[in-house]
């Protein structure tokens, strides 16, 4: 039997995985990272625009702090998020930015004195303070009150990933590349590691660990067009689903990014609009102010994507052989700005579209971009069902984003989650004495081996690419930006049929070692199950919240739907997931549900909301002399690893 032992096994070598691994390694634990690819190639590198952290150095961020970041995040989530987690995040994010600075990220810095920027289509001059000179700068992003998105040009994710991977190399953390975890080893209550397939030799190895952390990113590739990397197929999310015990949550919460290029779906960063870029229609008309007079192009992503779609439905799209699109106009930012701060965007335009964004408009359309849902965990990152199983980053749902994620909050989450969850993983490894039941390990190895043999031996069966495309098309056509009961019902039925068909996949290339078709044959059945979770969750949720927009239920219904959708796959023979629900407790919220301030708010209130608002007012008036930190603690106490609880310093206000 092929077995590798370690303390902390991390599946996924992107930012969340690497940061978790660094945390456990620094706590003295033996740590191994598994990755499909060299870690520096992970999809984290594609985060262009930046990472939110309330450092408040630029003048346009004056007055920013954890409270404002927290409030933006909760509002952005359409009150779907876990407010404890949003607090943990907002508190730790500035430290994460600063830590990455010591690890080498060349954050763009503030330059004192006047500088010319574009705000609401006009050139204005802002004056940066002398005392801010050389500190980490920030740019504007959608749905935020302050300029809070720290960046390095538009290659932020790349520089962060390189810094984190270099740190991991410095720490001597082995990254086992070209390895794919294909099953978790567990006994129904505890996780003991994973069965891993070597993508070159085809060999199966059991990686046995005290704690296993999944950090594999999103599942955008269940859609035909996605901004996600081609490896973002969601297998990390599918692994717990396959256990029949661990749950996924809010899988229907899928984000569509307003500005991916047409037709290939490559992202152009939100920084384009943050820096002053505009959206225009077939007539060259700037339409967003008509829909969202206050935030315009910088409304939350879900809002902008819907408005764009509405506008195209009115016949205002630009026709093309690939369907209608709109224009992103960054020409007004000028050559110098584009070549310095939006150069990846420029390269993408040149290579994939043959245009120069200094002079030409960019064809864009809302495109699948982010998975808010994922593996259900506690705020510690640990699975609620399987001990010893943790998740961090996009694949997880400790629930920081609820039903819509703010731009700049995902790449920030990866690293913050790694910092926090990594500490809890280390605590777990130190406290639990784990008896590894080797018979269980053996049985899982045997089972996975038998599955692969069955796929290879099957002479007549389903074509894996055909199944994949069918699934992707269903998701595109019926589980998109705007959803309705009728289409969703069809989607569920069609996916149900695909789940059944995916049990008899057969392949043409019958070798066990490196074999791209076999990889697909292992993955696609799991992907279809994920797709079914998304569609079922969306079908059942008869309200609109954040990115989940039901045309037949346009209101946000806090009374009946202030809850998370849970999905488990009870039996292998099931063709659909089993859904369950978990209530959000309004009486524990620091910010009771309110309006996000977009369009006309249709909200059916939760019966507790008014009571909680009163209660908070009482707490506030009973403590007139305390500072914001004390008050926050009184309203919603939350836990965080000790090392991250220190107050964050900012210019002008110190540690206030």
């Amino acid at each position, binding site marked *: 039997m092929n077995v590798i032992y370690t303390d902390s096994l991390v599946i996924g070598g992107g930012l969340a995985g690497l940061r978790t691994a660094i945390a456990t390694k620094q706590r003295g634990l033996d740590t191994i990272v598994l990755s499909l690819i060299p870690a520096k190639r992970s999809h984290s590198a594609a985060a262009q625009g930046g990472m939110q952290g309330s450092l408040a150095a630029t003048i346009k961020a004056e007055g920013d702090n954890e409270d404002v970041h927290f409030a933006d995040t909760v509002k952005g989530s359409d009150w779907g998020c876990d407010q404890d987690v949003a607090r943990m995040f907002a508190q730790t994010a500035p430290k994460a930015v600063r830590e990455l600075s010591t690890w*080498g990220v060349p954050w763009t810095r503030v330059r004192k004195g006047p500088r010319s920027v574009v705000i609401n289509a006009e050139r204005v001059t802002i004056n940066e303070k002398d005392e801010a000179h050389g500190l980490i700068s920030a740019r504007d992003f959608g749905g935020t009150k302050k300029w809070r998105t720290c960046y390095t040009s538009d290659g932020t994710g790349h520089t962060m990933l390189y810094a984190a991977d270099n740190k991991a190399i410095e720490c001597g953390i082995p990254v086992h590349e070209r390895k794919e975890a294909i099953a978790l080893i567990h006994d129904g209550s505890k996780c003991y590691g994973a069965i891993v397939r070597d993508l070159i030799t085809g060999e199966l190895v059991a990686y046995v660990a005290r704690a296993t952390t999944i950090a594999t990113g999103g599942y955008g590739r269940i859609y035909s067009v996605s901004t996600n990397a081609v490896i973002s197929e969601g297998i990390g999310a599918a692994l717990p689903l396959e256990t029949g015990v661990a749950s996924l949550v809010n899988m229907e919460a899928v984000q569509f990014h307003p500005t991916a290029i047409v037709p290939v779906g490559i992202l152009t960063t939100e920084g384009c609009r943050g820096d002053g870029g505009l959206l225009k229609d077939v007539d060259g008309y700037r339409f967003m102010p008509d829909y969202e007079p206050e935030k315009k192009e910088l409304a939350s992503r879900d809002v902008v994507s819907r408005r764009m779609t509405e506008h195209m439905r009115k016949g205002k799209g630009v026709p093309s052989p690939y369907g209608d699109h709109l224009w992103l106009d960054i020409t007004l930012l000028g050559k110098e700005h584009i070549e310095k701060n939006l150069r990846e965007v420029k390269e993408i335009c040149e290579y994939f579209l043959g245009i120069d964004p200094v002079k030409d408009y960019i064809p864009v359309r809302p495109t699948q971009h982010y998975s808010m849902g994922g593996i259900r965990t506690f705020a510690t990152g640990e699975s609620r069902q399987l001990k010893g199983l943790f998740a961090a980053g996009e694949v997880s749902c400790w629930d920081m984003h609820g039903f819509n994620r703010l731009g700049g909050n995902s790449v920030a989450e990866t690293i913050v989650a790694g910092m926090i969850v990594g500490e809890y993983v280390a605590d777990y490894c130190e406290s639990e004495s784990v008896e590894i039941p080797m018979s269980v390990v053996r049985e899982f190895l045997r089972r996975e081996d038998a599955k692969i043999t069955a796929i290879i031996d099957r002479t007549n069966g389903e074509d894996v690419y055909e199944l994949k495309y069918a699934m992707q098309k269903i998701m595109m056509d019926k589980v998109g930006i705007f959803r309705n009961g009728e289409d969703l019902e069809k989607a569920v039925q069609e996916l149900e049929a695909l789940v059944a068909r995916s049990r008899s996949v057969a392949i043409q290339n019958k070798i066990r070692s490196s074999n791209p078709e076999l990889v697909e044959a292992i993955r696609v059945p799991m992907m279809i199950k994920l797709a079914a979770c998304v569609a079922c969750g969306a079908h059942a949720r008869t309200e609109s919240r954040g990115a989940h927009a039901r045309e037949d239920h346009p209101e946000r219904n806090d009374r009946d739907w202030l809850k998370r959708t849970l999905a488990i796959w009870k039996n292998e023979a099931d063709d659909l997931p089993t859904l369950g629900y978990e209530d959000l407790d309004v009486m524990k919220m620091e910010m009771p549900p309110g309006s996000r301030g977009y369009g006309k708010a249709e909200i059916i209130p939760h019966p507790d909301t008014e009571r909680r608002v009163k209660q908070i007012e009482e707490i506030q008036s009973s403590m007139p002399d305390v500072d914001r930190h004390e008050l926050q603690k009184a309203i919603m106490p939350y836990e965080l690893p000790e090392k991250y609880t220190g107050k964050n310093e900012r210019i002008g206000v110190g540690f206030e």
Partner: protein
Amino acid sequence: MIQAKDGRTLKFHIFRYNPQLEGDEPKMVTYEVKEAPGMTVFIALNEIREQQDRSLQYDFVCRAGICGSCGMIINGKPDLACRTLTSKFKNGEITLLPLPGFDLIGDLSVNTGTFNRAMSERVGTWIHDEQAAEKSLDELEERMDPDLADEIYELDRCIECGCCIAACATKRMRDDFLGAMGFMKVARFHMDSRDKRSDAAWYEIIGNDEGVFGCMTLLGCEDNCPKDLPHQTKIAFLRRKMVGVKV
């Protein structure tokens, strides 16, 4: 915008060899693909794999020219396949070979990962500062000159694709030659005020024939770098610096 020169039939001549398969021999195989508007080598290869040969191996991750996975020799030049439009090749003939200088995994897939990690360990591609760990994350970060930050980013844009390694004649003759990717890393960390290594420490790493003195400055690296890193200026700079180090 993408102009459709639809309907052309492209001929892909692709290197095929699977070292995992006993008895397999390296060979070139030709595949025909109908060109679609905006088609990239990435799109064409996927089509070939799905419709003609399920065993074809290659690496793509971001398909957006930013992750460095898809370096290969395209009609004689190392380049990123994902952002190479087929329309670029007027006669419709496209020859694809794996990047030389790296271990072959199969067909067009090479193992850049182990190579790059070894390079990283050799150069020490991280901030060397013994005091760094003691810095409080609560306090204001250390200030940095805004221009310096921008200049570091210029070099930090390297995506470790390996095109410069594949294009380097010296590297091909001498396996232990650090190569341009490594030089760019040295230049990047050398410039970074947060990295406390002295020139003498850098000399230990590149002050020899496997390092910057072995470079013949033929600049295959700069000509083929998809991120337009300033190889020539930086290699010349490092050389001058290293010549000046007293040992």
